[in-house]
């Protein structure tokens, strides 16, 4: 049975997801020892500026503008507004060349081999539900439930799935939720009109479970550790990462945190790219 990882890279003028994908692909191959394919609308840029042989397959998709925009912070004092192209994740079921796929955000920095256990798991669909903000200074409740009176929250940052009939229905359902997003925000009491894959996946899991808690989707091994875009990735070397995390009630001040051998979702994409540039320039 074929297995591999899939990354999605659709640049928006401010954030270089292609660069992040190349960087993450190398780490996936090193830690998880699986091939990596990329879904991108920037195939020419990938081939001209990077070593594209790191990818098993390049799956080209047409460039598309989006109406979704959002603010991307770079620490607590700076932000840019840019396109938020997140409307293709539900198509990965049909786009992946693998029977067993590990779908990852390009800013989920792998630093151990824990996720390789998914491929031996009896579970056909796995996501993170438990999570931990490494800064521990912010309200984490928003990642427990979709909203105050709504359903359990699942992260779509990392998704393991096998090609099964049930999973095909699941991804088709997410596609339906995407197309009828306004309706589902009302049903599930979601305040923001912005389409979020985490919410869409959570809603789809809730529906597949018969509109109740259940075990249609199981948890990935470990916890989803994350830093928000108000924190700064200061240094990245092999499996070690040094962060400056937001200091509560002290705007512009930070506390240093170091992680070793722990995979982290680094939401500050600007600081991630600065570190990637530094790592690439040293290679």
């Amino acid at each position, binding site marked *: 049975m074929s297995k591999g990882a899939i990354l999605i890279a659709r640049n928006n003028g401010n954030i270089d997801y292609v660069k992040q994908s190349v960087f993450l692909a190398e780490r996936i191959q090193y830690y998880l020892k699986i091939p990596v394919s990329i879904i991108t609308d920037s195939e020419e840029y990938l081939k001209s500026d990077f070593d594209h042989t790191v990818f098993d397959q390049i799956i080209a998709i047409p460039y598309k503008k989006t109406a979704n925009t959002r603010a991307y912070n770079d620490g607590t004092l700076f932000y840019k507004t840019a396109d938020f192209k997140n409307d293709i994740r539900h198509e990965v079921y049909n786009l992946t060349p693998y029977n067993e796929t590990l779908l990852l955000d390009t800013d989920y920095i792998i630093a151990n081999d824990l996720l390789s256990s998914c491929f031996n798991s009896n579970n056909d669909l796995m996501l993170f539900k438990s999570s931990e903000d*490494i800064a521990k200074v912010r309200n984490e409740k928003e990642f427990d439930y979709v909203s105050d009176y709504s359903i359990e929250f699942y992260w779509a940052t990392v998704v393991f799935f096998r090609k099964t009939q049930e999973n095909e229905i699941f991804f088709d359902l997410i596609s339906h939720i995407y197309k009828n997003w306004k309706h589902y925000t009302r049903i599930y009491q979601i305040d923001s009109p912005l389409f979020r894959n985490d919410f869409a996946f959570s809603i789809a899991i809730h529906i597949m479970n018969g509109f109740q808690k259940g075990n249609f989707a199981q948890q990935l091994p470990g916890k989803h550790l994350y830093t928000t875009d108000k924190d700064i990735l200061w240094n990245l070397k092999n499996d070690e990462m040094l962060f400056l995390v937001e200091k509560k009630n002290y705007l512009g001040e930070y506390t240093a945190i*170091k992680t070793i051998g722990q995979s982290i979702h680094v939401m500050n994409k600007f600081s991630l790219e600065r570190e990637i540039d530094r790592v690439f320039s040293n290679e």
Partner: protein
Amino acid sequence: MDERLEKALEFSNYMVTLNNQKRLLKEKYYEDLLYFHSGCQFTVTKELITFVGMLISNSNDSDIVLVDDNNSPISIDNLNTFYENILDVYFSASNEYNTKYNELKKKRSVEKLVDIDE
């Protein structure tokens, strides 16, 4: 600033960093305690070790059903091997945790806690 307050704030900063590093070390320990067997995931706890040890000591060591972290039951063919493996996971993870924890305790500045050259 009053020198007494300045020293207290400096120590407060150190404690924040120390507690953060201890918390992350604990999370790493929990990850290291995971044991995978026949497609199932077990967190190796003292309870699991004691239960499996008790079954073996009562000669109930074949075709035992255990329930994994995702509440899936699984029949363990060879409980003795399973027991040896979870003990190995437990001691490796705990020893590593102990070593790293003691290293942390000896670091008396924020810079040393996050391994930045002063």
